[in-house]
């Protein structure tokens, strides 16, 4: 079984993002960029499936600027087999990403597509769900456990009330949550090998997908600074205050 894993190049989770002075977006000039942490978990899960003999090939896909090649190489160094870069300098919204992935999934015919539940830059949490709808495949989102047996996959999901397990017919879509696994460090020999693993570059046009934005960003601002809290003398005052604030 083939596993397809989309990975996104995002601002590193350790970096404190700065908003551009003109309010048009986040300043990315010379900022450290890394693989979206949820996608790392997705790559790790695919590698574990391969190590268990369930998966036979792992294909990673990234949609974005030429530099996203670095992110793909990171995935290859972790243990993915080959990579596809769909190169564009434009902003690509979740729906367009899902359409691109649909085309690739149709071509590659994977048994599973494992995505991060969301990317830490726009926190959209939409792509996996949209992809499932476009393909008409089952979806197990927010996975904390993934077990493939025969033609089905059991996905344990982290839902508000606790854990829920769904059983999906393959092929299926899985999106990862934080507790699914702990991604490995790439080993030195694998980093070296990654250099010679195949990486194909395409454009959205090659795939026949229109990526024009449907949303317009009006303004990007920093979140308001947290204001200082207040101290209350006793429980009565606390209750009074809470009532005042209509909580």
């Amino acid at each position: 079984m083939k596993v397809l894993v989309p990975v996104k190049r995002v601002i590193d989770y350790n970096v404190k993002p700065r908003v551009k002075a003109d309010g048009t977006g986040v300043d990315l000039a010379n900022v450290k960029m890394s693989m979206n942490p949820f996608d790392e978990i997705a790559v790790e899960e695919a590698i574990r499936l391969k190590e268990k003999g369930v998966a036979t090939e792992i294909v990673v896909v990234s949609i974005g600027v030429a530099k996203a090649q670095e992110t793909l190489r990171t995935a290859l160094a972790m243990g993915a087999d080959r990579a596809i870069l769909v190169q564009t300098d434009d902003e690509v919204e979740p729906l367009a990403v899902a359409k691109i992935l649909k085309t690739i999934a149709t071509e590659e015919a994977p048994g599973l597509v494992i995505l991060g539940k969301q990317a830490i830059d726009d926190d959209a949490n939409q792509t996996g769900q949209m992809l499932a709808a476009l393909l008409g495949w089952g979806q197990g989102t927010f996975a904390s456990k993934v077990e493939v047996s025969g033609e089905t996959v059991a996905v344990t999901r982290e839902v508000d009330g606790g854990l829920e397990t769904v059983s999906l017919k393959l092929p299926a879509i899985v999106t990862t949550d934080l507790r699914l696994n702990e991604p490995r460090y790439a080993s030195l020999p694998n980093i070296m090998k990654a250099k010679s693993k195949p990486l194909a570059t395409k454009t959205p046009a090659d795939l026949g997908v229109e990526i024009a934005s449907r949303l317009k960003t009006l303004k990007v601002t920093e979140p308001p600074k947290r204001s200082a809290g207040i101290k209350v003398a006793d429980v009565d005052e606390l209750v009074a205050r809470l009532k005042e604030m209509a909580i």
Partner: protein
Amino acid sequence: MQVYDAPLRDMRFVLNELHADDGFGDIPALSEFTPDLTDAILEEAARFCRDVLLPINRSGDEEGCHLENGVVRTPAGFAQAYKQFAEGGWTALASDPEWGGQGLPEAVNKLVEEMICSSNLSFGLYPGLTHGATTAIEGHGSDALKQAYLPKMVSGQWSGTMCLTEPHCGTDLGLLRSRAVPQGDGSYKVTGSKIFISAGEHDLTENIIHLVLARLPDAPKGVKGISLFLVPKYLPKEDGTPGQSNGVACAAIEHKMGLKASATCQMNFDDSTGWLVGEPGKGMAAMFTMMNTERVSVGIQGLGVGEAAYQAAAWYAKDRIQGRALSGPKYPEQAADPIIVHPDVRRMLMTMRAYNEGCRALSAWVSRALDAEKHSPEPEVRQRASDFIALMTPVVKALFTDLAFDSANLAVQCYGGHGYIRESGVEQYARDARITMIYEGTNGVQALDLVGRKLGAHMGRYLRSFFHPVSAFIEENNVDGPMKPMVEALAKAFGALQLSTATVAQRALKDPEEAGAASADYLRLMGLVAMGYCFAKATKIAGLQLFFGSEDKRFYDAKIKTATFFFERILPQATASFLAIKAGKKSLMALEDDVF
């Protein structure tokens, strides 16, 4: 707080941009290591260091090592981290692919070493010594020894040590007493007591391979009578796995000022079976193969700690609010300004930063020479590289470690009273850095090596490998323009170095004590000139980048500002060194011994 993140941008700068024209580069054997690949390696190493090695640095310092019934236990987390480190292939980084190594250029390897030492100096010693031991075995061991030991040491499954020091001899190894008796089957029985043996015993690997200096029965007195032996903790069985124990015992571990998570062991060898590495009586030469790479690495250890200290101080200086800027409040919304506004705090931060960037630039140059010496197809380049390494090894070892201790000390000062308190994490840097000035040949001995052995070698040929590029740079760039003040300052310091060289050489001919009296100041002077040269080159490159509108304005702009600080506020120390050298030994030796 220990907050280290590898300075990847500066590392890429010294690796790919700064020394591109030094005549050591373009080595066909290393052409596969393109910047995108070395970037990926540095990034992953940085992540590993930050996430795995850094979190056990302070806890390892608090806990230290334990000796129970002859068995040494490293602090919590070390065995697990070592396992991950070896599994990740990091022990094999710079080793020869013939033995399972990755064959990475030294230029990359040294940067990774720096990161490891910044994150956890104690940890770094375990794989560091193993790597040193493999170079000695590779250079001087028999094929049988290489086959039996190198693959397991390179993979990190087994570790290595160097056993030189004995209670009565550290610097003066000619006094050493351990003995080795031939058994007629090619093996020897080694007996003796060694002290201060780093990684002599621990719980990270299934076997430990000691390289032991000892005397054969008929050996002459002094260093000429010393041979090198390989003595495993467990003798390998037929199938190569560790078998019977070999009479090697750890009698005690030292309680030290710092470097607490590295086990410093008193080792007893009692009729332990060993094999000769290299020829009888040539033990010092074989050991020096190891010592020379190790000395550069100890310099890097210093740089590593210096960088970590700087980062901790810079973080604190932005966080701690105390007092107001002399020019009036700069952060009026806060109760006080962060201490980074104060000129004296700036002085400390800039000094540390300039030391680290200067040392990193110089070590990158030396590392390129290490690669060229090994791999360059041209004999002339290999020779020049080898000359340059011989000259710079004592400078890198002593200068970097001296400056590292200064940096760690300044970091404590930046933290005020909190720096003196364990929880802050910075006093550990001062304690850890301190040993790097002592082991692997004290810094005093490094200075003697430079002045006594390296200056005059081959009629000054070693010196030329350094003086030629510096004078060519000065000549080429001493023109009107923004670089002029820097080039003039460099020329002045370089002039002082040339003059001092002549003075020392002349006086030493008549009186060897003059060489000894000048040595430490001479080494410092050469180090300052070497850093100055690197900073001037860096400024030129950065200036061009800014002129052509580089996207990375922040980095190049900071590089020029740091270089300017170095030239205006640190390089003037060259004059002080020059004057001290000029004064000669007289006042130094004047007081009678019994007056002390």
